[in-house]
């Protein structure tokens, strides 16, 4: 199979598999993530989508922005639906009715992945279906109007954990889903960010070249929910990586590798400051929250570095 060299010039000559005319908000991170994932894939792809912004906005009543076979079933079962499709494919292939090599990709937001779709995702990974599950993580149920999810970061203001006199935003830390998925002992789990497109594309290519269940968690800024500007999706995701809020790493067959180490680790406030959902953290009485958040980020980064260092023979 011909592979496209990894330059933007060559990638731009490929046919885009997600078209314009989708109804995602201006400046949304999710279509950027999907576009990059689809650009990385070679050959025929079949996708499934959990309910979420991406699903409702790319497939509104009879119009679809996808140029690949795509299926939506319900909120909780993108992984189970794709498991069925993949199983049918294996059966048809055995019967000699399909000769193509097809790759399967499921897309879900953090709500459809961390919370509602978690059991079906866990089941699909345990059964070992040959699929790549992509979670575009924007850190809340943005589609229904910014309700907290288990991916919502500590301290964030959402409509179901509003910052005010009673609570200072979300009082719990976020779930570490990438590590939870890696704990399923799947061959590949990784974290990526659209700001580092080369890293993202390489990870998708690697994931698709591996047989079995794969998981990728990709940061996807949402200017409505993050209360930020419409033009800063890439800038914010870059800050997320540089502050180590969203470390880029992969866990391949149990071996952790940090794929991007910032030259200088920026303070977490650089990532929080441009976002209105964290505005209240900068009030003097909430200083402890900034400290606690920074400590959690440092702890995770150090544990990754340690795990990554152990890979040397």
């Amino acid at each position: 199979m011909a592979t496209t060299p990894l330059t933007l010039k060559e990638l731009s000559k490929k046919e885009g598999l997600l078209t314009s005319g989708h109804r995602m908000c201006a400046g949304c991170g999710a279509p950027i993530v999907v576009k990059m994932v689809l650009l990385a894939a070679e050959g025929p792809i079949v996708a499934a989508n959990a309910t979420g912004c991406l699903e409702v906005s790319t497939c509104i009543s009879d119009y679809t922005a996808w140029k690949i076979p795509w299926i939506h079933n319900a909120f909780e079962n993108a992984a189970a639906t794709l498991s069925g499709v993949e199983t049918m494919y294996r059966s048809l292939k055995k019967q000699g009715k399909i000769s193509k090599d097809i790759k399967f990709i499921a897309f879900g937001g953090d709500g459809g992945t961390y919370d509602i779709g978690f059991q079906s995702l866990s089941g699909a990974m345990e059964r070992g279906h040959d699929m790549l599950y992509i979670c575009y993580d924007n850190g809340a149920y943005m589609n229904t109007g910014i309700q907290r999810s288990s991916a919502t970061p500590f301290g964030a203001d959402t409509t179901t954990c509003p910052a005010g006199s009673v609570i200072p935003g979300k009082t719990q830390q976020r779930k570490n889903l990438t590590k939870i998925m890696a704990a399923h002992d799947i061959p590949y789990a990784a974290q990526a960010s659209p700001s580092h497109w080369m890293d993202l594309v390489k990870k998708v290519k690697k994931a698709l070249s591996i047989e079995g269940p794969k998981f990728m968690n990709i940061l996807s800024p949402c200017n409505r929910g993050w209360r930020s500007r419409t033009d800063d999706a890439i800038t914010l995701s870059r800050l997320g990586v540089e502050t180590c809020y969203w470390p880029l790493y992969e866990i391949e067959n149990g071996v952790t590798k940090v794929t991007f180490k910032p030259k200088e680790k920026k303070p977490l406030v650089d990532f929080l400051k441009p976002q209105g959902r964290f505005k209240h953290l900068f009030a003097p009485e909430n200083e402890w929250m900034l400290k606690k958040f920074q400590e959690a980020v440092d702890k995770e980064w150090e544990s990754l570095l340690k795990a990554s260092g152990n890979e040397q023979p």
Partner: protein
Amino acid sequence: MKLKGWKKVTPGAVCTVAGSALEFKTGSWRAFRPRWIEENCIQCLFCWMYCPDMAVNVKDGKMVGFNYDYCKGCGICALECPGKKGKKAIVMEEEGK
């Protein structure tokens, strides 16, 4: 974009035409319009890669302008544009001015 009557909707709401969303022009959402200044462009193609709406036209690996039918005017391209010698190749301008 024409809405279909219920008799014409396929069973199970299956979409049979791939990429039919192209019929929906999202350009009318735009409040700010990106303007491309060719002499400052270094053809890095970041605008193309980072555009959420696939509204950057590229021909033979080169940026050639915007597709205003779909550009929602988010401004990511202008912010990420490295430009040449400190001069941006993409600037945002208010619509209707």
